[in-house]
């Protein structure tokens, strides 16, 4: 029997509304019966005696939380393994404090078949670091025309469905998607971008006018959100808006929720911290989709986090090699590498200015994501799978891209001074990463 005793930490468990200084014991991959109950953990230790092979982690001054879950990452396997593989991506995930991630289907080929779902799950198991759950494509080849085998993929283990990278453009196909997915109670994650309106390289605004770059208007995102909310009104499929970025997008979700519509939403760290002004020097590190918007949009997203319109915090981790990004701005690929600095960035954006409490932060990074994708995770209650993240909220550190486990190095946050990071990541009761072994 293997066990880990985490001592002297403060447990933050949103699933039990628990914030308390206490120890926690993990036995054989599960939170021990008394692990986070009112009873002393030492009872568990005594109960299992010395036949247990034991590891102790001193979490003094740290938070002990359910493992962080990122439901939006891009691992480039199959197809672009030089940018990232499931192995390197999982390593990056645990180094960032994440115990589970959901990987998007815009691989080459797309994850639009049972075989590809199987492949991801097998590979995740083989690598044995973070849990990698595949998101299946909505349409064949993500072409937006014909539905993919959603039922079979779900049965095989696809955790949700998305054509991410693009949204489903054809309204008729989208309506059928809602109807079909409803049957399986499948979750749809939509990359909301009206492609006819879009096509630029950065946010359409004053900065893009000055720079002479084609713009991506805010309306491109809002249009698809509005359309989907309307299409889904009478169907009620579970629907999740990915990487929200504009003020009115947040407002649309807010109104939708008020009307009782089935919708959840996520945001990415850069949309809470940066604006399109960062693109002034044509530095492609700041090129992503949806693009960096204006200060008003940033504020609206933060307000959306505070009032619950935005349910969860994700990363949209999108690795690209340095030479792929070293192109003219219009031709460089979209995306930034996020897993290994997301937590620190969210602390900077939300905790430090006092916008949210630690309880809410962990809720949005663990408990709520687990609920949305219907994973039995995001909790430290007795008997739960022992996915645990230990976070030191005070440690000052600098983002150092060169030390990353990810294969790629594309981030505008390199060199940023942050406060707070994960120190240990435990998946299924095994320590998969700690700062000292890094």
């Amino acid at each position, binding site marked *: 029997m293997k066990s880990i005793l985490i001592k002297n930490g403060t447990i933050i468990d949103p699933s039990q509304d628990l914030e308390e200084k206490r120890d926690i014991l993990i036995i054989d991959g599960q939170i021990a019966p008394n692990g986070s109950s009112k009873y002393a953990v030492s009872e568990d230790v005594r109960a299992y005696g010395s036949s247990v092979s034991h590891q102790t982690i001193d979490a003094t001054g740290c938070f002990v939380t359910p493992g962080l879950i990122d439901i939006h990452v891009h691992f480039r396997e199959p197809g672009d393994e030089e940018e990232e593989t499931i192995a390197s991506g999982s390593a990056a995930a645990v180094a960032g404090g994440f115990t589970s991630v959901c990987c998007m289907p815009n691989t080459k080929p797309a994850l639009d078949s049972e075989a590809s779902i199987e492949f991801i799950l097998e590979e995740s198991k083989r690598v044995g670091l973070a849990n990698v759950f595949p998101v299946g494509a909505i349409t064949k080849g993500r072409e937006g025309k014909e539905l993919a085998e959603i039922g079979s993929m779900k049965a095989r283990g696809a955790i949700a469905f998305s054509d991410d990278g693009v949204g489903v453009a054809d309204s008729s196909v989208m309506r059928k998607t809602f109807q079909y997915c409803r049957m399986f109670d499948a979750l749809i994650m939509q990359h909301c971008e009206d492609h006819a309106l879009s096509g630029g390289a950065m946010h359409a605004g004053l900065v893009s006018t*000055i720079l*002479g770059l084609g713009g991506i208007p805010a309306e491109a995102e809002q249009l698809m959100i509005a359309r989907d909310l309307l299409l889904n009104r009478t169907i009620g499929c579970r629907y999740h808006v990915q990487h929200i970025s504009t003020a009115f997008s947040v407002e649309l979700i807010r109104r939708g929720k008020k009307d009782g519509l089935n919708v959840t939403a996520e945001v990415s760290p850069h949309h809470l911290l940066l604006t399109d002004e960062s693109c002034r020097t044509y530095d492609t590190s700041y090129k992503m989709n949806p693009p960096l918007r204006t200060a008003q949009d940033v504020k609206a997203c933060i307000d959306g986090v505070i009032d619950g319109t935005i349910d969860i915090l994700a990363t949209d981790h999108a690795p690209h090699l340095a030479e792929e990004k070293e192109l*003219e*701005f219009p*031709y460089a690929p979209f995306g930034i590498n996020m897993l290994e600095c997301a937590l620190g960035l969210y602390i900077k954006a939300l905790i430090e200015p006092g916008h949210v409490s630690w309880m809410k932060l962990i809720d949005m990074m663990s408990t709520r994501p687990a609920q949305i994708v219907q994973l039995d995770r995001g909790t430290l209650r007795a008997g739960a799978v022992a996915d645990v993240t230990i976070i030191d909220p005070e440690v000052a550190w600098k983002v150092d891209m060169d030390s990353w486990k990810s294969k790629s190095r594309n981030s505008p946050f390199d060199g940023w001074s942050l406060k707070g990071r994960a120190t240990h990541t435990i998946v299924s009761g095994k320590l998969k990463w700690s700062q000292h072994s890094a």
Partner: protein
Amino acid sequence: MSEEIRWTRKHLLGLEELSADEIRFVLDTAQSLKEVSTRSIKKVPALRGRVVVNAFFEDSTRTRNSFSLAAQRLSADVIEFTERGSSVSKGETLVDTARTIEAMGIDILVVRHSAAGAAQLLSRTLKCSIVNGGDGAHEHPTQGLLDLYTIRERFGKIAGLKIAIVGDIGNSRVARSDLWGMTKLGAEVILVGPPTLVSKSFEQLGARVEYDFDKVVGEVDVIYMLRVQNERMKSAQFPTVREFTKLYGLTWDRFQRCKKDVFIMHPGPMNRGVEIQSDIADGNQSGILKQVENGLAVRMAVLYLVSQAAGANSV
């Protein structure tokens, strides 16, 4: 003349970042260099032994020849690099291509490219001087400078003038460079075109935006016509060339309603009969040929000044 200003920039990437004094300094230098083209031996040794490469990734005989001649007048060695047949067409990136060129030992790279920010990218990745010959819809600084020179030559000043720039502003690097230069030197700029081609954002940059050309035609000292491009019709930004000419062309009829001594300009090449009538373009109120003539002196000044600054920096 602005004697106190020194030119310390080893790159010329755009007019946005230049001060009014720096712009005047370039114009004054160009004025002195104009004289070189009047001699029988049209050369000075200022850039002797320096290598200037014209890297034109986008077609342009006119600008390329202008830079080429300017460099030769300064006694530089000139290399012409055009995209066709180069490694770029075989899939090499811009940065790799530029690095290969730089490895030959060059001093100034003049670059024209269809992507906005291309010159910026190269200035970050190479060590030589970069002169922006036009990058996408972003800037065309030497065009802006020669336009300012031509206006100053004609009116003796730029401050206080009213200048209308007409046409496809949104996609025009010339319009942007002119906007920066003209407003910095105190002119009032009016951007004229349809809303699909002229974004309201330009008002935040100090310009007036007008959709009705006729409203503006009688109040301006300079009318600067831009070229109409067929791609705009195809992407639904404007119905037809015919309608464009009706609404925004400099027709003879509109010309009659202009100020008596209005000055007509165009960056070339012109679509005769489309944005501008032939007889107006060829008439004595047209500065179009002067622009080309001044382009040579301005480019000589730019090449001279960036090479001076680069030399100073490397000491």
